[in-house]
């Protein structure tokens, strides 16, 4: 057997073997395998496509959510500012009412103090007059004797108008 001379028997055996292998593999392996590969490719493509669709949908939803969020935020801000304005108004009203109340109370106090003061002065005057009268009475009772009385009466008479002539 020479290295470079073809051998018809071996050529035939090779062709027979190759064809048998080809037939067996085609029936048992390549057919189902290539079908399975195509199927897998299809399912992967489907999965990618549906993932793309889902992503697009999610983007739309996200934009929607963001829009709603912005709306809600502005609404909340508006509510808060309205509430603040209302509270300020109420506070001012309360303050004004309290001030007025306090002034009225003070005024009333001043008036009653004035009245008390006047009453007290009147009372004081009467007391003082009574005491002066009492004291005068006591002095009169103590100081009046015959001589002085006579002197007093004489002086008095002397001082009467016309008594000198």
């Amino acid at each position, binding site marked *: *057997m*020479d*290295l*470079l*001379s*073809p*051998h*018809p*028997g*071996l*050529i*035939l*055996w*090779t*062709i027979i*073997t*190759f064809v*048998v*292998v*080809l037939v*067996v*593999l*085609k029936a*048992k*392996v*390549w*057919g*189902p*395998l*290539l*079908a*399975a*590969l195509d*199927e*897998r490719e299809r*399912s992967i493509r489907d999965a990618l496509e549906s993932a793309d669709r889902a992503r697009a949908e999610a983007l739309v939803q996200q934009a929607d959510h963001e829009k709603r969020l912005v709306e809600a935020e502005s609404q909340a801000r508006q509510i808060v500012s309205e509430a603040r304005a209302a509270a300020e108004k109420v506070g001012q009203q309360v303050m004004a009412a309290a001030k007025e109340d306090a002034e009225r109370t003070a005024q009333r106090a001043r008036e009653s103090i004035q009245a008390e003061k006047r009453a007290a002065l009147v009372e004081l005057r009467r007391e003082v007059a009574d005491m002066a009268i009492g004291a005068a009475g006591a002095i009169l009772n103590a100081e009046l004797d015959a001589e002085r009385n006579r002197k007093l009466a004489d002086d008095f008479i002397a001082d009467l108008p016309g008594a000198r002539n």
Partner: protein
Amino acid sequence: MAADADGQVDVVGHILDHNSLEVPFINAHHVFDGHIELPQFELFGIDMSITRHVVMMWVASALLIVTMMSAFRRPGPVPTGLRNFLETILFLRDEVIIPIMGESGRTYMPYLLTTFFFILYCNMLGLIPYTATATGNISVTAALALISFAVTQGAGIANNGFFGHWKNLVPSGLPAPLLIIMIPIEIIGMLAKPFALCIRLFANMIAGHIAILVFLGLIIMLKSYFVAPASVVLAAALYLLEIFIGFVQAFIFTVLTALFVSMAAHPDH
């Protein structure tokens, strides 16, 4: 590997086909050098002996069928185990064959995949000790090239009609005098393609084996232990290269066949 008394190594004899198998552990006197004779017979005047390379081809085919069928037993959508590995080789389909041949390549896919794996398994089987490389036999590669040639011509005829196919041999619109030159050139070119396929695979397969054998044979020829480390290291490196070449040559044979088939089917490209 046979080494005779005066330290000569029969390198080419190892490459050649034989009517016997080398089997270890069957000969009590030469433990690693047993032989099993194979049947020799003729059919219709052709020597159809079952030679060593025929047996190796059958072993490779059996291994190919068994591994493929076990790997793709359940053709579900999710690959597991061995199938994962084998499917990586199916990049041939998406990255090579379809780009070369277009969608019509799907028709030839079973043939091309079988060619690739058949050559690959034969190449790889030859790397195991006591086996032989069937694809290192010019008759085997010639047969594979003949099949490739037949598929190529068949694709041309199927796509362009019988006469259309032969007319496509020569580019259309040539002046008549040129045809006298062009027709023989194109016929030679048509025959040169399978011839090149045959010789390329054959030569690549025996080259590495011869180089490995020569390196290892040096130990015996020089009768020196000091040669052994260098020889073994170089032979091991070549062995790894051989694994690579086994893949590359199967790939090249398949890709070129796809190219030829595509050219025959669509000559206008």
